């Protein structure tokens, strides 16, 4: 078995059964960033680690079919643009760049704090995609090197 074909059956089975839980936990951390410790940065890394788990367990080819890498690249660049768009909308609605223009809501509730959860989600997507893509490209580079030898 080649090294980039993934690991043994046991690792594959456990990954298969647990990957949804890790992704859900990452989303929980992102969405509750304005209420509890965490936020876009931490949750993004959790999601990236879930994808990385699949990449390490199942190998390069399977993950490529599952995740649609070109879409991830577009999400990665698009989220930066989206961040700026949310900021620019602040100029129209509240008078300054990145102003908090959505209704604040009441404290300690999920839908509160205006643009903060929105920006948290954008940052989470950005961090998750970019960190996963680095490892992805690194793995692809390694496979290319091995094929040449």
């Amino acid at each position, binding site marked *: 078995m080649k090294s980039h074909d993934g690991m043994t059956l046991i690792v594959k089975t456990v990954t298969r059964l647990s990957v949804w839980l890790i992704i859900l936990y990452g989303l929980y951390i992102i969405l509750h960033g304005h209420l*509890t*410790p965490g*936020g876009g*940065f931490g949750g993004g890394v959790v999601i990236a680690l879930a994808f990385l788990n699949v990449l390490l367990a199942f190998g390069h080819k399977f993950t490529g079919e599952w995740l649609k890498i070109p879409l991830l690249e577009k999400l990665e660049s698009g989220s930066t643009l989206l961040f700026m768009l949310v900021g620019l909308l602040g100029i129209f609605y509240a008078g300054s760049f990145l102003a908090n223009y959505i209704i604040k809501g009441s*404290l*300690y509730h999920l839908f509160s704090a205006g643009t903060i959860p929105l920006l948290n989600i954008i940052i989470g997507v950005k*961090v998750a995609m*970019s*960190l996963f893509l*680095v490892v992805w490209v*690194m793995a692809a*580079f390694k496979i290319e*090197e091995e094929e040449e030898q």
Partner: protein
Amino acid sequence: MTIYLMCFILFLVGFYGVITKRDLVKIILSLAIMGYSTNLFLIIFAYRTGAHYPILEKGTSVTAMVDPLPQALVLTSIVIELGITALLVALAVRLYGKYKTFDITKIRRLLG
């Protein structure tokens, strides 16, 4: 005072590694150490004795809280550090692919 100085020692260890090591991997690791010590120093500087973490909780009212501003700055700094580490690792892997060594003196010699 002792804690500030120990943090500075950690920074100097990283600095020593950047100056004297000839190995690309060790240089990347020393840069990471310098980053850790800087982050830790900022947070140590912001600590207030007996204070609460800066997150409000339902049903409790806390008056004294830790300084949240350095925490926000360090949060972004950690992320940037990881990005820079990834960039450096990519460069090191590329250089290894071309010159088959991690030794920077040899790489310099090969460049001519």
